[in-house]
């Protein structure tokens, strides 16, 4: 590749060194090692990270770890206590709880991840452009965000999920609506956060320099300012993953998330309540699974904040 420059009115062509794939790989490797070392230094992030690795490995290996069917009833083994055959016991349809926890986890983590990505992809451009252009558009955009933030806790999800139920959306479409609801409720927070960082960032000199060179506004906002605003967003998204998992579990617990017989931690917990007096352990395992997963994301997010935002690390 070559770069064309003008000097003394003369056109001069100079070669620019374009990194080869090998060099890029080396650089990426060095950067990852740096990042891992940083992670290792923060105990919280390291522990959270390890918990997440364990979680992902277990969920990926689900078909290997258990050969039972998570949905098919087995009336020969109703409500069995934990044993060698059934590590966590069986539920009221004789289904292996361990198997249901694993399959439920796969689904839950995928939905949570999709929801957070959706929220980010909606909120980041919204917040960045709003903060970058400012003025009336910004005011209007931010009032919309304020209005959406006024829905406390799970109420916005309740509205959307109720609508989905009334339209009789099932299976994949139901999951899609769940992703939409969770992502949509996350978007105002992202937008506000992104806007805040952009407001500080756009005062800086490099932005002025880019303006002087005549770069397009959209290019400056999305390719130059945005990368510098990513760290709080990444931290927020990590913590949000844990929160989204809690919300999904709460919705299913209320019977508004996934319809049975799909394995789902919240729904399984809710079903377990009917057998709590005779079989208290059924209610324990899905709950522990939720705690473990959410704690992993929270620890990792907390540690990440310490690393990415050193000002706060002493707190």
């Amino acid at each position, binding site marked *: 590749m070559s770069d064309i420059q003008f000097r003394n009115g003369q056109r001069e062509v100079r070669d620019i060194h374009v990194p080869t794939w090998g060099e890029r790989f080396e650089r990426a490797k060095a950067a990852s090692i740096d990042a891992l070392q940083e992670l290792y230094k923060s105990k919280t992030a390291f522990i959270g990270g390890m918990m997440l690795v364990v979680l992902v490995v277990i969920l990926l290996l689900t078909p290997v770890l258990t050969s039972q069917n998570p949905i098919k009833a087995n009336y020969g083994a109703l409500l069995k206590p934990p044993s060698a055959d059934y590590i966590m016991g069986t539920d009221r349809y004789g289904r292996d709880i361990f198997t249901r926890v694993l399959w439920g986890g796969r689904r839950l983590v995928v939905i949570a991840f999709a929801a957070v990505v959706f929220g980010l992809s909606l909120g980041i451009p919204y917040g960045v452009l709003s903060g970058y252009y400012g003025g009336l558009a910004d005011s209007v955009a931010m009032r919309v965000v304020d209005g959406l933030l*006024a829905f406390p806790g799970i*109420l916005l999800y*309740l*509205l959307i999920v109720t609508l989905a139920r*009334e339209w009789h959306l099932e299976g994949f479409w139901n999951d899609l609506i769940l992703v939409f609801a969770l992502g949509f409720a996350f978007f105002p927070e992202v937008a506000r956060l992104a806007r805040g960082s952009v407001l500080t960032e756009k005062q800086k000199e490099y932005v002025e320099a880019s303006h002087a060179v005549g770069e397009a506004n959209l290019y400056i906002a999305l390719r130059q300012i945005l990368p510098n605003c990513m760290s709080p967003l990444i931290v927020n998204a990590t913590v949000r993953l844990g929160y989204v998992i809690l919300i999904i579990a709460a919705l299913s*617990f209320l019977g508004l998330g996934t319809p049975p017989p799909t394995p789902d931690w919240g729904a399984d917990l809710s079903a377990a309540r009917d057998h709590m007096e005779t079989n208290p352990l059924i209610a324990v395992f899905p709950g522990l699974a*939720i*705690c473990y997963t959410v704690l992993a994301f929270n620890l990792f997010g907390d540690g990440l904040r310490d690393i990415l935002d050193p000002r706060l690390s002493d707190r």
Partner: protein
Amino acid sequence: MLIYTINRILHMIPVLFVLTVVVFLFMQLLPGDVIDTLVGDEEAEDPATRALLMKEYGLDQPIYVQYAKWIGKVMQGDFGKSLITRRPVAFELLESIPATVYLAIVGIGISMLIAVPLGSIAAVKRNTATDYAAQVTSLIGISIPEFWFAIMCVLLFSLYLGWLPSSGYMSPFEDLGQSIKYLILPAAAVGFRQAAYTTRLTRSSMLDEMNKEYVDTARSLGFSETKVIYKYTLRNAMIPTITISGLQLANMLGGTVVLETIFAWPGIGQAIYMAIVDRDYPLIQAGILVLGIIVVVVNLLVDLLYRVLNPRVALN
């Protein structure tokens, strides 16, 4: 302060507008005809009756007119009638608000009792085992789903030990002793989760305060460490803590849907949940709108309170 207050109140208007539009759209986005939803299939089969009903409900008018009319009614407290009980929705909601407020206030009280000492000790003993223990505990507290915590409490205290009733409600004015028995488990479930947040908050605002110069001055004047910390630092650190706890009251109100349902607590959260189960749309709509408005108003009050408590903010 007056100008600020007026300004803040004016800021509420667009927020309330967005809130009401979303809630209004909810009704519009329901499948089928509003008439079917509101009246039931049998009565609305005759086209003539239908047209009459359309006119009566104003459904023949453009959507923004419908919105304006609806807002007008809402401002007078007319949220329509419940499809199940046929009573005005406003009554249903008014009846359920005291129980929710009772639970929320006791819950916040419990969380403060746990969080303020824990957070300040963690800050004073920063980076020691005590601090890490407090931090880990509060992180775990945030990660435990409240409904699971609630179920585990019921399991332990009502089913296993048999000390407390597993669900139900009694007004404190009827029988205070019984009322408290019913209250303990739900309030603990609300309070512990809240305590986890508040501990982190207290800790970080204590650390902020402890790095300030007046603390050094107080120490150099020979005040005892206890006095410096508990009389001066903690007092100042409480300002942001209380403010943000106030803001979290809003989130708690949203969270009550799950807890009230578990404990059969007759508050606004359970009312909304039952309405969703029964497909009582006017009640869902009004319930969510009312909770949203409460949140907006609480946020405003907390904001104003913060300025009163901390006049320095005004200078920034």
